[in-house]
């Protein structure tokens, strides 16, 4: 039987790994390759690596780093950050990455999803939705490290992305990021029940219990997390660790 995946999310900045709180206050947590090696030993279900500088600073993805990470990974890898055209997607997949995550690009260029899905297949195209609660109810989509607000409503947008050929929606909660206060189950449930494609959620997991609760509630889902897999204890000492749902 297919089971829910438990997925560490690694944020890359300046070739190092960082962990943020609400997309800010990043703390250095180590070297990407070293982290991948530890996650190999822990037999993680999958890894998501997001370069959080690439789009905001209008940089090309760091292909050398992606290639090094991909060839080290003994588990499936999803890469996101700075991807805005088909050539980049083809190049990243050729480096041994299973899935490419788009984020800002599809808002302005929906054709990219269709074109990419046709060329490389839906299974390799994920879209990260950075969402946050509106002050007066509802949710909104943001891009560029939560500095640019988008008009479209997240659930409508998720439906649209699935129709265009996206193979996975990764819901990234800005309000919960790094807070370890639990997943934002409301928006996760709304999107997961609206689309026929796999959904992964990240932002807020504070314990394996949060992860288990999400999987119990949502059925098949990707349970992604940052803090719980890079920090230990209340003083947030850096320690790469991992558990999946069968461990």
């Amino acid at each position, binding site marked *: *039987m*297919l*089971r*829910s*995946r438990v997925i560490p999310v690694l944020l890359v900045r300046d070739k190092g790994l960082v962990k943020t709180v609400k997309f800010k206050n990043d703390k250095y947590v180590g070297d990407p390759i070293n982290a991948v090696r530890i996650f*190999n030993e822990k*037999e993680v*279900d*999958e890894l998501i690596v997001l370069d959080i500088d690439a789009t905001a600073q209008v940089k090309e993805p760091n292909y050398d780093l992606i*290639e090094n990470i*991909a*060839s*080290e*990974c*003994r*588990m*499936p*890898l999803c890469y996101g950050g700075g991807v805005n055209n088909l050539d980049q997607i083809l190049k990243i*997949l*050729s*480096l*041994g990455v*299973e*899935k490419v995550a788009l984020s800002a690009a599809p808002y302005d260029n929906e054709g990219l999803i269709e074109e990419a899905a*046709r*060329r*490389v*297949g*839906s*299974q*390799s195209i994920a879209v990260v939705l950075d969402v946050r609660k509106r002050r007066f109810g509802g949710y909104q989509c943001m891009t560029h490290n939560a500095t640019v607000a988008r008009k479209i409503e997240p659930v409508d947008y998720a439906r649209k992305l699935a129709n265009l050929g996206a*193979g*996975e929606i990764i819901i990234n909660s800005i309000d919960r990021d790094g807070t370890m206060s639990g997943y934002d189950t409301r928006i996760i449930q709304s999107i997961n*029940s609206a*689309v*026929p*494609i*796999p*959904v992964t959620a990240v932002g807020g997991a504070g314990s394996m219990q949060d992860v288990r609760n999400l999987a119990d509630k949502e*059925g*098949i889902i*990707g349970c992604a997390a940052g803090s719980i897999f890079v920090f230990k204890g209340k003083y947030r000492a850096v320690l790469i660790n991992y558990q999946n749902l069968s461990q």
Partner: protein
Amino acid sequence: MIAIASYGLGNVKAFANVYHRLNIEHCIADKPEQLKDADRIILPGVGAFDHAMQLLNQSGLRETLDHAVLIQKKPVMGICVGMQMMACKSEEGTLEGLGWVEASVRKFSTEDTKTYPLPHMGWNTLQIDSSHPLFANMSDNPELYFLHSYYFDNEDSSITIATTDYAKRFTTIVQKANIIGIQCHPEKSHDTGVSILKNFASMQANQNA
């Protein structure tokens, strides 16, 4: 020597890393001579059927590959789209497949996307023919990583050596003489996947031809 066919698609390095750690002689083959020198071949693949076929057809490897597999009967293992390419055709594209196995590649279809979201993505269990040498030293229901929306539908069910349930029971692994196809990703499935790659390196694949 195992040649990992490199035609611009798939995790050639991930396979090379596994064989490097196992201390098994291998090479990343982007020239026909390397396929000629090899005694076994891995055909990886990620992505859409036509894109994969197009790259393979343009790679300069196609003719040597066909010869190595069909005439010389070298053991070959196709992974994911690498397996699907071994079929005659795919619902995902219009190009002809390699036609090494009488099979068509079909799209999953289900009304119940709540229980079975598509693509089929994640860790799922295999029902295996446990006597098969490819599964030596493995548990009865191994779990491997899947990432696909299309499945391999072989005409002769006796060549199926592993199946998986997802909306329906489908073929996960086939073996027809020297030809093996695997839908899931052993190169990304930790120790279980490593066992499969290791067993492929030593098994007599064309015994039961």
